[in-house]
C-alpha cells in the first residue's frame, strides 16, 4: 500500500487481473456462490440434527425432510427416557465447568503475572519447565493420576475433575503471560508507589487491562471442560454424578436407539457452548489464533 510501486501507472492495468477470483461483479458472485454452497453443506448436519429431533418417532425412518407434525415434546422426553436424569447431569456439568473456568482464570492470572513481571533466581528454568509441560500428552500421566485420586478416595466424586483446575494450566499461563509482557511497567510502578501490594496490582491494575485474553482463556476452558469425555469417564462411574457428555455416550449405548430423542438430547448438550460461541465469538477465535501466531 505504501510501496512506491503503487504509484506507477502500470498498476492500473495490472489491477484488472489482481487476485483473479473475487474481482469484478461476476467474480464476487462466484465467490459468494461457492462459499454459500460449501458452508451450507458444512452446516447441514446440524440442520439435519434439528429436523430429526422434532420428528415423531414413526417419521424418523421415512424419507420426509421436514418434521410433520412438529414434535416439541421430544425435548422434555429426551431428558428422562432412558432413566438417566439429565437435569442432574446438567447440574453436574455446570458445577464442573464453572469451577474449572473460575479456578483456572484466577490461578493462571496470578502465575502468569509472576512469570511476566517478577524477578527471582530459577525463574528462567521454571519457565522452560512450563513450556515443556505443555508438550506432555495426557495419556502419560493418566494412570498414576488415577492411582493418586484412587488412593485419596476421590473416585466417584467431582473432586478429580475440578481440583486440578485450581492449579492453573500451562497453556493458559503462557497465553496470559504473553499479554502481561506487552503492558508498560510504569502502570505498576505508579500503583506500587501508592502502596498497593502484589495481589492488588494484579487484580486492580493488570488483570483489567488484559480482559480480552482472560475472556479467551475463559471461553476455551468452558468449551474444553463442557465437551470433555475422557476425564470424567475415568473418574466418574456413578450415574448420578455423570456429566452431560457421559450422558450422551450412555444414550449411544442403548440397544434400541431412538434417534429423534438422541438428537434432541445431543442438540441440548451442544447448546451451552454454541450460545457462548455466538456471544463471545471474537474470544474463541482470538484464543485459537493468538496462541498459533505468537
Amino acid at each position, binding site marked *: 500500500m505504501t510501496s512506491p510501486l503503487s504509484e506507477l501507472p502500470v498498476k492500473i492495468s495490472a489491477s484488472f487481473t489482481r487476485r483473479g477470483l473475487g474481482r469484478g461483479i461476476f467474480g464476487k458472485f462466484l*465467490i459468494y456462490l461457492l462459499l454459500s454452497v460449501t458452508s451450507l453443506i458444512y452446516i447441514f448436519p446440524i440442520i439435519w440434527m434439528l429436523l430429526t429431533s422434532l420428528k415423531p418417532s414413526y417419521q424418523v425412518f421415512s424419507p420426509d425432510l421436514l418434521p410433520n407434525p412438529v414434535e416439541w415434546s421430544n425435548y422434555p422426553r429426551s431428558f428422562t427416557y432412558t432413566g438417566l436424569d439429565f437435569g442432574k447431569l446438567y447440574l453436574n456439568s455446570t458445577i464442573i465447568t464453572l469451577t474449572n473456568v473460575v479456578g483456572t482464570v484466577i490461578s493462571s492470572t496470578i502465575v502468569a503475572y509472576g512469570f511476566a513481571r517478577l*524477578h527471582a533466581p530459577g525463574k528462567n528454568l*521454571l519457565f522452560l519447565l512450563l513450556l515443556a509441560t505443555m508438550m506432555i500428552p495426557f495419556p502419560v500421566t493418566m494412570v498414576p493420576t488415577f492411582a493418586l485420586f484412587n488412593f485419596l478416595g476421590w473416585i466417584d466424586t467431582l473432586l478429580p475433575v475440578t481440583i486440578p483446575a485450581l492449579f492453573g494450566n500451562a497453556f493458559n499461563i503462557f497465553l496470559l503471560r504473553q499479554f502481561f509482557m506487552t503492558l508498560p511497567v510504569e502502570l505498576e510502578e505508579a500503583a506500587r508507589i501508592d502502596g498497593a501490594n502484589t495481589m492488588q496490582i494484579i487484580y486492580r491494575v493488570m488483570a483489567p487491562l488484559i480482559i480480552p485474553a482472560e475472556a479467551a482463556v475463559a471461553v476455551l476452558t468452558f468449551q474444553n471442560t463442557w465437551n470433555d469425555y475422557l476425564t470424567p469417564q475415568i473418574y466418574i462411574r456413578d450415574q448420578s454424578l455423570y456429566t452431560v457428555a457421559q450422558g450422551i455416550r450412555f444414550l449411544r449405548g442403548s440397544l434400541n436407539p431412538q434417534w429423534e430423542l438422541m438428537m434432541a438430547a445431543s442438540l441440548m448438550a451442544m447448546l451451552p457452548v454454541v450460545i457462548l460461541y455466538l456471544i463471545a465469538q471474537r474470544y474463541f477465535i482470538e484464543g485459537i489464533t493468538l496462541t498459533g501466531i505468537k
Partner: protein
Amino acid sequence: MTAKIKSKPSYRRREIIAFYLCISPWLIGVILFVAGPMLASFLLSFTRWDYFSSIQWNGLRNYEKMLDDEYFWTALRVTFTFAALYVPLSQIISLSVALLLAKKIKGVGLFRTFFYLPAILSGTAYVVLWVWLFEPDRGLINNVLSWLGIKGPRWLSDPNTALYALVIMSLWGMGSSLMIYIAGLKNIPEQLYEAAELDGARRFSRFYYITLPMLSPTIFFNLVLVLIQTFQSYTTAAVATGGGPLDSTLFYLVYLYRRAFVNQEAGYAAALAWVLFLIILFFTLLVVRSSQAWVYYEGGKGKEKE
C-alpha cells in the same frame, strides 16, 4: 538478549518471595499432576499392579509382552492409518477453505462462523450426530448417495469402512486449523502480491512462490499441533464404535484405556502410555527437524539462528 540480564543479579528478597508465591499454584500442580505422575508412570511401566494390591516388580516384561500383543500392533496400525489420512486431508481442506475465507469481502465473517462452529462441538454429542448421519439404512449420507444412484456402504458397522467414516467425521471439526490458517494468510503483506503482479505472475505462481513460503511457519505449527492431537484421539472411536467392528477402529488410546481402567493393569498401561509418548515425541521431532528444509522465515532468521 537485552541488557536486562546483564544488570546486577541482585534480587530483592521481597520480590523473590512474591514470585514464588505467585507461581506456587502452578508449581504444586506440576509436581502433583505432571512431573510426579510422569515419573511414576515410568516406574510403574516396570511393574505389575492393579491399583489395590501391592506393587510387584516386573522388569522389562511389560515391554516384552507388548511385542507379542496382537492388539497393541492392531492399535498402532489403526492409529497410524488414521493419522496418515486425517493429518494431510485436514490440512489440505482447511488451507483451501482458508484461502477463500481470508478474502476481504463483505459478509465473510458469517461464513467463518459456520466453518468454525463444528470445531467447538467436539465431544460425545458431535459423535452421536455423526453416528446418525452414517446410519446405513436411513442415515443422511446413504440417503444422499442413493439419490445419486450409489448404494452406500454400511459405514461404522463394516470393518472395511469404519475407519474411513471416522476420518470423515473428524474432518468436520477442522475449524481450529482453519482459523490459524486465516490468521496466517492475513499476515502476508499485500505488497508481495502487488510486486508479483507487476512481474506478471499468474495465480498459481503467486500461490506457489508467495503464499506457500510465507505461510510455511503456520503450516508447520498446525502440522505439529494436529499430529500430537491425532495420536491421542479417543472420543470419536470410543463413542462411535468402541474400537470395533473387529478392532478396525481400535485407536491406541482406546486400547490403553481398556488396559488401564477396564482390565486394571496399571503397569502394562503405563508401559503402553510411555510408548505412545515416545512415538509422539519422535514424530514431533521429525517434523521439527524437517522444518529446517521447508519452513521459510522472513529475513532468513531460521537459518542464521541454527
